[in-house]
């Protein structure tokens, strides 16, 4: 009886969480225009999507911004993580780390507004550049957070061992440190990319006329009345983001499996 109750409770939660998305995906394949009536299976709206110039431009912007923001924030955040890791004074390191993480806890709207004010103060014209800069800014802490644990796992003497064997500090970094923290760097990159293509609030504040990404485009189109095209577009974005998240978390799952396996006494 208890079990039945537990199960149905879980199912209810799942239903509540996933019903809208499932509905969205199902109706993106609907042949008719209606959002309530099933008119047969069709890829019509997906084809429509590919013909819509506005959406294609937004898609291109999103991808360009996403990839560049991810690349730039990975470099900056990765180097930042190494800098933090090498700080000898513990108090200072903690302070710097908290400072780096703060923007993640900050509400997006505050980040958006403050960036907007900054650009205004610097008399920067809102547009592609400010959009990119904003995305870089909010992605950096996530990269730091995914690289730092990998650095902490390293034997602290690895870099010294490489130098001991004749490698300059730069070579030691490329040949010994980088390959070992690569998984962290990679997941940092993917995380940054995911966050960037997913972002709406900060983008809305920091972009200028003429430059829009997908989320802003969807928002403005939805205000003009929801077209089933948007179902298709949202479904695509959902699947892409879901895939990326799974890839990012894959190593964690594997590690957890390994750990539980190891814990079984022999």
């Amino acid at each position, binding site marked *: 009886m208890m079990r039945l109750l537990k199960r149905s409770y879980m199912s209810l939660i799942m239903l509540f969480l996933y019903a809208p998305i499932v509905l969205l995906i199902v109706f993106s394949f609907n042949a008719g225009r209606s959002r309530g009536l099933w008119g047969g299976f069709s890829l019509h709206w997906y084809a429509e999507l590919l013909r819509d110039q506005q959406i294609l431009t937004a898609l291109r912007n999103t991808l360009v911004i996403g990839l560049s923001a991810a690349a730039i924030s990975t470099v900056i955040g990765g180097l930042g993580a190494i800098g933090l890791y090498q700080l000898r004074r513990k108090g200072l390191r903690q302070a710097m780390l908290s400072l780096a993480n703060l923007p993640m806890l900050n509400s997006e709207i505050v980040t958006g507004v403050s960036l907007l004010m900054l650009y205004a103060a610097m008399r920067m014209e809102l547009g592609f550049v400010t959009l990119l800069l904003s995305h870089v800014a909010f992605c950096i802490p996530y990269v730091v957070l995914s690289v730092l644990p990998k650095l902490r796992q390293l*034997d602290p*003497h*690895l870099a*010294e*061992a490489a*130098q001991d064997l*004749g490698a*300059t500090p730069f070579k030691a970094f490329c040949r010994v440190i980088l*390959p*070992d923290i690569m998984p962290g760097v990679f997941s940092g990159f993917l995380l940054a990319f995911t966050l960037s293509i997913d972002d709406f609030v900060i983008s809305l504040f920091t972009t200028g006329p003429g430059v829009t990404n997908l989320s802003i485009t969807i928002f403005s189109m939805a205000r003009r009345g929801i077209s089933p095209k948007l179902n298709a577009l949202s479904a695509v974005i959902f699947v892409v983001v879901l895939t990326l998240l799974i890839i990012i978390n894959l190593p964690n799952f594997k590690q957890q499996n390994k750990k539980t396996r190891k814990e079984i006494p022999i």
Partner: protein
Amino acid sequence: MQDHLIVLQDLRMVFGDGYEALKGVNLYIDQNEFLTLLGPSGCGKTTTLRIVGGFEKPTSGDVLYRGKSIVNLPPYRRNINTVFQRYALFPHMNVAQNISFGPDMRKEDRQKTARRVLEMLELVNLSGFEKRSVKTLSGGQQQRVAIARALINKPDVLLLDEPLGALDLKLRKEMQGELKRIQVESGITFLYVTHDQEEALTMSDTVVVMRGGEIQQIGTPQDIYNEPKNAFVADFIGESNIYAGTMVKDKRAIFLGCEFNCVDKGFGQNVPIDVVLRPEDVKLKPAEAGIDGAPQGTVLSTLFKGVHYEMRVLVGEDVVLVHSTHAREPGAEVLVTVAPSDIHIMHKSDYVRENDEEEEGLM
């Protein structure tokens, strides 16, 4: 000065937090020497080693290498290699890639390097392991890879920081022999760090005993064991009895409430001294033997230790530790005798022994 391979001149090291880890270390190391830094935890052994390796810059003082100062040379320009305490093998490389890292950095001929890797693996008894991932190796095997990775560079000096610390007792004994063999075969100078006195005494040509950032004594293992310069060295090197005493005149000392003949001279008359007796040098005689001037005591405890019995004898307020193959019953009255040449007299030092329990934990 020119003929020593490495000379450490008045090395001082003050860390950022104001802690003075080295307080003026002077030391020279000769070609082909196996020199060991020995001392309790925190005495500055690792710090000294890291300065020689180039990973740390001394606050003041100089490191001469074949007569030239190298303190400003980065580690990758020194012909010195290190075996790190926890090996620091490169986890994403296999055994052969780890070992060939040094030659690759110097852009040496790849085929020649591959041959040398096999030679090195043979030297450390790991033939056939070249393709293995280092993560799958046991502690002892990782240790050997670390040694091979250092030796392939034909360094003039090899620095080893407690290289056997993480191994179990049996493997440690085995590796001690191996390391000594490798050192003799390769003719490379070893600068070795350990806090295990037995390891230091069995492997080294020269032992340097350190304490609190200062060198206490430099000498051959025999010197250090038989002629400790002060109470600290005597205590650290092995279980010993240390008593406060007085040097009456040359070759006459008072301790344990009696006057003894000894062989030491030149301390002056009526000077306070420390006296060290090794437990195996103390002989117990039955109280009835009636030897003039030998202190009398009561056996407190007798413990069988495999090769010998360990006995504690109470003499006045002092306890004498005795190792002997001949057991005495607890409670027995005995006379304590020591041959004059086994009485080690030292200048009084500020060293105060920690209580016995802690000391046993250390051994």
